[in-house]
Structures are given as C-alpha cells and as structure tokens.
C-alpha cells in the first residue's frame, strides 16, 4: 500500500517538499549539535531538560490519546468512529516516533543509546518508558496497517488484530502514566512530586489529542474526498470538552494546595515563578497566562452547545485547546520543574535558534509520517468507496462484538 503515498496532487507535493525542507534545516542543526555538543542549546546545569524533553512529554500524550477514538469504537460500539480509528492509530504512530526522536536529540551521547538495552535497568523509569513506548509504536503500526489492509480487501480484520486492539487500550494509558512517573517520583523537585501528575497528564492528553484529530478531520475534508462525518466530530468534540474541563480542574486543585497551604514543598516557588515571576525573572509568565487564557476560551466555546456545533468556532476551540495544553505541558511543566534550582536560585531558560530548528525538524518528520499514512488510508477508503458518504461509512469494518 506504500505506493499510495507516492502519488498525489501538486499541493500534496508542495506540502511534502516544505516538510522535507524543514527536516533538512533541523538535520543541519542537529549535525552542528553533534559536533559541538548540547552547548548550542539554551539548557544549563540548572535547567538540564528543555524544549526537547518538553515536546517528548507533550507528544506522549498525543500518542496516548489515540485511545479516545479506539476505545469508544471497540468497547462501546460507537459506530461513528469506525471511519476514523485508523487515523487515530496512525497519529499515535507518528507521535511516538517523534517522542523517540526527541529523546535521541536530547542525549549527550546518542551513539550510546543502546546502553539502555544492553544494560536493562528495571529500577529506572526511563527504561520502562522506552519499553512501553516502543511496544505502543509496534502495536499501533500492526493494528493500523492490518485494519486498513482488511478494509482494502473488504473483509473484516483478522481476530488477532482485535486482541491486539484490546491490549492497546490499557497500553495507551500506561505510556502516559509511565511518562508522568518519570517526573512524579523525584525527591526535591516539588513541582513534579505530585501523585496527581499522571491523572493530570491523561486528562490533558485526552483533550489535546482528540482536538488534533478534529483539526485533522477538517483538513482531510478540505484537501481530500474523505469526510469523517458530523457525528464522529460531534462525539470527539464532547470528549475534548470533558477532558479539557477535567484537566483545568486538576490544575486548579494543584494551585489550591500550593497557594492556600503556602508550603514550599508543594511547588509554591515554581508556581510563583511561572505565574508571577520571581526576583525580577519571568520568562514563562506570558506562556502560562496565554495557556490559561486559551484554555478558558476553549472551554467556554466547547461547553456552549451552539459554539461547539458550529464548525468555525469548534475548529478555533480545538486549536486553542491544543496550543493551551502544549504551552502548559510542553513548556511550563518541564522547565518549571527545574526552577528554582536545588539551591533555590533562579536560572532562566530560553531555547536557542538551533534548538528550535531541531525541534521543528522533528515535528516536520512526524507530520511527514502522518501525512504519508493518512494519504494511504484515504486512498484505500476512496478505492473501496468508504470515503465520502458518512451514512454508509460507519459500517466499513464493524466491531464484531455487538455488545
């Protein structure tokens, strides 16, 4: 089916070339980083993880959120999602690949990355994160590909694929939980040392991921003949609504504990730094307030049924949700955890140009993978006549458990 990604309109090729150019720029900067070291980034002794690990953390959430289209379809027989589950799975594939790339570009000695496999270390959460992420990547590749293959041959997917789907559901939860454990188990990092962190991660992921799927659905409808269908988008929008409000509620819980108790060990110094700035510093203050403002606007538009159903406002709300969570999790959470440092001193962090270009390059790689996979899926759906008519599309590959 791969060949389907290699044919397309002028616009398709324009997009592909743009992504390739961004990847090239990123690769160039990465070669610079290989030759000069992480000194070309804005990271320091005090803020030893930056943009790269922030993106990694955020994208694990996007990957995990594929479960929000897969689970309703397979467990609750929500037929409207039948046409789009494969996109959810492919989104997960692209997101996990980006995660792995972000870890690799962050390493000081990337050529030694296999030490993680050669000397497996069960006491390290990073080891388990690698295990669950690679497992999740394989699961989604195999599932997505086989479901699509079955759809092309107009047969139901083989039974073992369904078994894998059931495995993939708790697995998706596990990848984001383990990623939260990377942070939540560290003594002395008060902003992260928080049992709520995994729950917060999942809630924010289940908002940002489906928001991206909705945006993706609109893009596909505009640029191809594939239509996800109103019902599917409506149901996804509800998921985004509930997840976003839950996520904001969780953030509020954390803020309350810290601000009302005023115990430094509950992250108060970091929260002050993030939201008001401290001792004349405050690089992240606009980032955090932008995140809060976008989140509130998105929540308002989503909770209100009229604006949730209107396409233009829904699209805006989804974009706002995605950006809000990206700012909070991909930037504020990871960097904030290092500020103040163990000596209660503030060292600020700002990414450098090469660091930003490497980050953009990895995103472009992910988008290229996603574009290719979606292109293949859309071509298959077109060929089998399941692309344009939402009414019959739902039965493309019905779940076999009519529970």
């Amino acid at each position, binding site marked *: 089916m791969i060949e389907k990604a290699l044919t397309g309109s002028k616009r398709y090729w324009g997009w592909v070339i743009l992504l390739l150019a961004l990847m090239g720029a990123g690769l160039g900067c990465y070669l610079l980083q290989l030759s*000069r*070291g*992480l*000194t070309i980034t804005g*990271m*320091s*002794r*005090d803020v*030893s*993880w930056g943009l790269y690990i922030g993106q990694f953390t955020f994208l694990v959430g996007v990957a995990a959120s594929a479960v929000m289209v897969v689970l309703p379809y397979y467990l609750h027989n929500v037929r409207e999602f039948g046409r789009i589950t494969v996109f959810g799975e492919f989104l997960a594939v692209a997101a996990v690949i980006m995660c792995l790339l972000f*870890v690799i570009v*962050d*390493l*000081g*000695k*990337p050529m*030694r*990355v296999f*030490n*993680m*496999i*050669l*000397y*497996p*270390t069960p*006491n*390290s*959460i*990073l*080891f388990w994160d*690698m295990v669950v992420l690679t497992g999740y990547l394989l699961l989604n590749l195999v599932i997505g590909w086989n479901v699509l293959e079955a759809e092309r041959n107009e047969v139901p997917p083989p039974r073992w694929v369904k078994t894998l789907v059931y495995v993939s559901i708790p697995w998706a939860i596990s990848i984001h939980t383990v990623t939260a454990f*990377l*942070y939540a188990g*560290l*003594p*002395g*990092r008060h902003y992260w040392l928080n049992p709520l962190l995994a729950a917060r991660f999942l809630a924010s992921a289940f908002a940002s991921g489906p928001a991206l799927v909705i945006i993706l659905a609109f893009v596909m409808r505009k640029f191809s003949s594939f239509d996800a269908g109103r019902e599917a988008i409506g149901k996804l929008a509800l998921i985004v609504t509930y997840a976003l409000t839950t996520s904001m509620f969780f953030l509020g819980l954390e803020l309350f504990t810290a601000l009302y108790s005023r115990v*430094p*060990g509950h992250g108060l110094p970091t929260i002050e730094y993030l939201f008001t700035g401290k001792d004349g510093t405050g690089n992240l203050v606009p980032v955090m307030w932008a995140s809060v403002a976008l989140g509130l606007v998105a929540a308002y538009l989503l909770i209100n049924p009229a604006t949730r159903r209107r396409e233009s406002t829904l699209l805006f709300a989804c974009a706002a949700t995605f950006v809000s969570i990206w700012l909070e999790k991909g930037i504020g959470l990871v960097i904030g*955890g*290092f500020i103040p*440092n*163990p*000596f*209660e*001193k503030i*060292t600020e962090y700002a990414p450098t140009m090469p660091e930003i270009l490497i980050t953009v390059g990895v995103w472009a790689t992910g988008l290229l993978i996603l574009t290719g996979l979606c292109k293949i899926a859309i071509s298959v759906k077109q060929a089998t006549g399941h692309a344009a008519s939402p009414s019959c599309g739902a039965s493309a590959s019905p779940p076999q458990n009519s529970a």
Partner: protein
Amino acid sequence: MEISRRTFLKLSGLGLLGLLGAPVIDVLAKTDRARVARAPGALTAKRWALVVDMRKCWENGKGTCRDCILACHREHNVPDIPEEKEQVRWIWTEPYENAFPEQGHQIGAALSGKPFLVLCNHCSDPPCVRVCPTRATFKREDGIVMMDYHRCIGCRYCMAACPYGARSFNFTDPRPFINSVNPAYPTRERGVVEKCNFCEERLAAGSPPACAAACRYGALVFGDLEDPGSAVREILRTRYTIRRKPELGTRPNIYYVVG
C-alpha cells in the same frame, strides 16, 4: 511448510531467549562488580562519610581559603569553564540559606550568609542511582556513589533526580578548559555527567581524599561511619551536626559541624 515453520519458530524463540538471557546473566554477574579485589594497602570502610567542620573552616580559612576545592579540581581534571550555566563543579561553596533552604530561618542569624562547602552527599539511598537507565551511576558497597563515564548516555535524568545540585554535565568539550592536566586521572568527554567520587582512586592507593588532605586546618574529616571508633563517629558524638535536606530521605553521608 508446517515443519519449517515450527523449526523457524523454535529457532527464533531460541534467539529471543538468547537476546533476553544475555542481559539477565549480565545483571546477575554485575552484582559483584563492587566486590572487585582491592589492592593491598587500600583504605576500606563499610560506609564512607565526610564531616565538614564549618567552624574551623570559617575561623581559619576566613572564607577565602579554597585549598580543598583547588586540590579536588586539580586532582580530577575538573575544567574551569567561565560560562556559569555550563560549569562543572565537584566541590564548591554556597551560602547557608541556599545549601539548607528548608532550614534557612531556624538556626538564626549566626549562620546566615556563611559559605558552606557542598559536594555530592554520597547518599545512602541515592535517587541518581535509582533513575539512571544504564547503571552508569551506581553505588558501591562502601557507599561511594560512582560514575562510569564510558557508560553514561548523557540523558541527564540523574541531574533532574539529584536534590542537591551535585551533578554537572559536560555541555562542551572540557579539555580546553583544564589548566594543567593531571595524567594520573582521566579527563572527560563532551556529553557525559560527572560529580565527586570521594576520591575512590586515592582510597584504592591508600591515601585519604584530596580535599581532606589539602585542608591545613583539619576541617575535613573522612572516615567509616559504621566503625564506632572512627574519628567521624567521635565528632558526631560530641558536636552538633546537620545534613542537607534530611527530610527527603536520601540519607546524606556528608555532615556539617555548625556548633
């Protein structure tokens, strides 16, 4: 067809076992890495600890003496990097409030602003060892928390985990920043983490750590915490000592005499 498939499965199963088995055997073999034979004359202990008598240091050193820091950094080829954000430090000073943030206002103005020597605490329950995905950071039986520079992949997870800011990462190639190279100790490469190693290389040769040896006033006392007759135990019995961030449960093995 059937047979060849079975054979294939068997063979791949065996191969997988081998792949999984090798590291397992490795793990088992690794457990006695710390028990390598010590040279005769080596200093040994059940649990090494360092007592820093800050009183002696302030009274005699007047806050300007840097003998211990210089001796350590010279001994271990620690680079002198001007860029503050990328500095490599094994032992240095921090004002009292910063070294003991949670206790800052309990003891009173007597300690306020006073410089404290800080270094890796060689914690008894070290989070840096717990998080390291390659076992490049590991704890020896005598309590020394060690770095294997050749194993480290530079993920910097240990830096996030250490609550004492004791670890440094080589953002850039350290060699141009070493004033005079000590050929007896290796220099590091770009991309790995490093920190104080309690002078394990000197202990193996029968000498005390460079910092303790360099202090003219005997402010640094190194010894076995599990030996009731040791000098460190004697000080702990008779003087008032504090440790950094004891509330975190890492159980530091660096003690500070403050009264």
